[in-house]
Structures are given as C-alpha cells and as structure tokens.
C-alpha cells in the first residue's frame, strides 16, 4: 500500500495520470478536489485542509498539487501550517509553461487556456461568467485582453481547434504554445526534495 498522497486540483487529474504513465511512477495515491473550486478560489484552502486532515492518519506524507491559484498566498500559508508541500507558482498555466519563463514573458493582456480549460471552456469560462445568457458582458470581462494563449500540454488537433474557436468567441487573437507538462513533472518527481516521495511501508 502506498503511503504518500497527492491532493490535486481536478483540472490537473488527466495531466498527473499522464505524467505517471510516461514516467512509470506509482509512488503516490492521487485524490482530486473539484476543479470548479477555481470559480471560488477563497474556498480552496479550506477544501485542501479538510482533505489533508481526513487523510493524515492514513498517509505518511501528503503533497498538495495546487499552485497559489488566486488564493493570494492563503493556500501557501495553510499548507505551511499543516506541514505539507505544494507546487510553486501563481497558477497551473504558469507552471505548465515553467514559472520562470512565464514570469519573464510578463504577458499582461493575454488570457490563458490549458488543455483542461480548452476542453472545458463552456463549463469553466463561458457559462460561469454568464456569457451564455448575457453576451453583452463580453466587453466588460475581456475588453482589456488582446490575445488568447493556448498553452498546450499535448499535441491534439481537435483541442487546438477548440481553443481557437474560444479565442474567436472572446474576440481575441490566438496563439498556441506547446508546453508539455512543464514544472508539474519536476514537482511530482520523487528525485525532487520537495516532491511526493515513496515511503517504504
């Protein structure tokens, strides 16, 4: 039985499982919180804490596969208080591109999609923003953006077409950038000191 738990955002589930398959990793068990928590980032720290406390007795180590994700540092503080590690960086799109590279670009007027968000554009962007019912809000939400950047984790023609269509719907120019899994791989790599490591058990 594995004694390491990774608590991840549901938006990363497919990617984490793919990384495990690619690397032949089975050194941790994965539990995901609903990706929809991103619509209310203030709820993420409590949800993570609840899962950590529920599993603390069952696992030797717990790793949190979330970046800051709009919590304004609160998630990092909570993880520190709980004594668990988490992923560095502001958002998943930053660590997919690589946190340093993402910061260096300093793209202020770009709106980012990952594979997950391209796949779930309607459920995670269009509808929660009320654009299905009130398209007149588009300018209020996206008027200051210029470009939609699709940070692709995989080579997927159909997904690229979906991302391009999303850009058109938002009235933004489109750019596709292949990132692969970026810093998420090293964050989960057992060779990394702060990553979830196998615990003999």
């Amino acid at each position, binding site marked *: 039985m594995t004694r390491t738990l990774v608590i991840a955002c549901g938006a990363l589930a497919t990617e984490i499982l793919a990384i495990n398959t690619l690397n032949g990793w089975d050194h941790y068990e994965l539990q995901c919180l609903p990706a929809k928590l991103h619509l209310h980032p203030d709820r993420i720290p409590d949800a993570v804490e609840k899962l950590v406390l529920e599993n603390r007795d069952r696992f030797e180590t717990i790793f949190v596969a979330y970046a800051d994700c709009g*919590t304004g540092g609160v998630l990092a503080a909570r993880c520190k208080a709980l004594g668990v590690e988490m992923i560095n960086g*502001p958002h998943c799109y930053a660590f997919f591109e690589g946190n340093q590279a993402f*910061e260096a670009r300093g793209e202020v*007027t770009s709106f980012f999609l990952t594979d997950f968000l391209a796949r779930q554009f309607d459920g995670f962007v269009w509808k929660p*923003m*009320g654009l299905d019912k*009130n398209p*007149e809000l588009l300018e209020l939400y996206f008027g*200051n953006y210029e470009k939609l950047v699709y940070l692709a984790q995989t080579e997927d023609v159909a997904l690229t077409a979906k991302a391009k269509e999303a850009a058109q719907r938002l009235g933004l120019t489109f750019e596709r950038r292949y990132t692969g899994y970026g810093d998420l791989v090293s964050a989960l790599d057992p060779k990394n000191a702060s990553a979830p490591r196998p615990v003999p058990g």
Partner: protein
Amino acid sequence: MSNEEDDDLILSELPDDELVPQMHDDLYDGMADEIAEGVDILLERGWEPYDVLTKALVEGMRIVGIDFRDGILFVPEVLLAAGAMKRGMAILKPLLVDSGAPQLGKLVIGTVKGDIHDIGKNLVAMMMEGAGFEVVDLGINNPVESYLEALDKENADILGMSALLTTTMPYMKVVIDTMKEQGIRDDYIVLVGGAPLNEEFGKAIGADSYCRDAAVAVETAKEYMARKHNQL
C-alpha cells in the same frame, strides 16, 4: 425577482412609494431601460437628482451588494445590475453637478501595474461616485508614478488600488513604500481591494484598510473622511 406581473407594470402609473421599490427590483434584475425610465419619471415628479440617486439607485445596489456577499447573486448578475445603475447615473450626473449634492471627498483609483482586471475597480468607482465622492479613474495597469502624480494634481483625499492577480497585488506595497519615502503617506487615506487580497495583506503592506467589496469601500471611505474632518 421579475415575473409576468412585472412585465405588465407601467412605471409611470406607480406612486412614488411603489415606484422606488420597483426600481430596486429592476436594478436587481439588471433592467437598464426600466431604470432609465424610472429615473426620468422621478425627475419629472420633481425629485432632487441626489434623492433619485441615493434612494432609488444606491439603495438598490446596496441590496445587490448584500446578496452578492451572501452568495445569492454572482458576478454576472452584479455586472448587469451595475450596468443598469450606470444608465441611471448617466442621466443624473450632469444634474448632480449643479444641484448642491454633498461632496464627501476625492478618490484617485486604478488597477496596479501589470493588472488589467478592472471590473471590481469600476464597481467601486461607480458606488463611490453614487455615495458623493468625486472619482478620478486612472484605469488599468498603473505604475507608481501615475498614482502619485494624480494624487498631487487632483488634491485627492483617498487612494484606491485594485488587483485581481496574486502576482500583481504586491505592487501595492511598492506604491505605499514610495509614498513613505516621499513623506506623503499620511497625507492620504489608502484603501486596497481585489479578489485575492485580505485584511492581513492590507495591514502588512501599510494600507489604511482592505475593502472586500464596493459597499465596504464606500462605508470605509466615509468613516475615514469623517475622522479626517474631526481632526481638522
């Protein structure tokens, strides 16, 4: 709140004590045309522009704000309500200038450098204006120089800074630290807001107050201005 009965309502036939609550409902439902019509009707009936603003529009938005805070309304609904209020304010604004409406103070506001998300900032600016503050809106992506120049040039009382991103919110401290270096920090009330911020962050960077939403920003600004006047 809308129902079939509302669709048949003729606003001009409602007495004042029914029209104003109806406008609150229309604002709640984001019905901009009906709000504009209601404002016109009240003005025709001899209402002071300031009373129309405060009793019909600001009070309506106050209810919207409460339900947003309580998780009953979400951002899209608030934006539609704000759009309706904006339509009403567009009618009232030119009339308010000469009507002797109280001026509570002057606010310079903008999103910080690197941040283009202005929905919250725009809501605060509108509600502050509705509450009687003069608002100088610097827009988005403001470096420290823009804030300082505007504060000085406009002889402002309050600086409002807004950020949506975890990566941009630390810039607020850059602005406040620069104000300290120049010896002007205590000349202004500094209010900060934005989704990832919290009270602890506001204190840590040296702001006077963190405001979690537009309604709180208005109340906080009023309190600080009252204290300021008491000190004079």
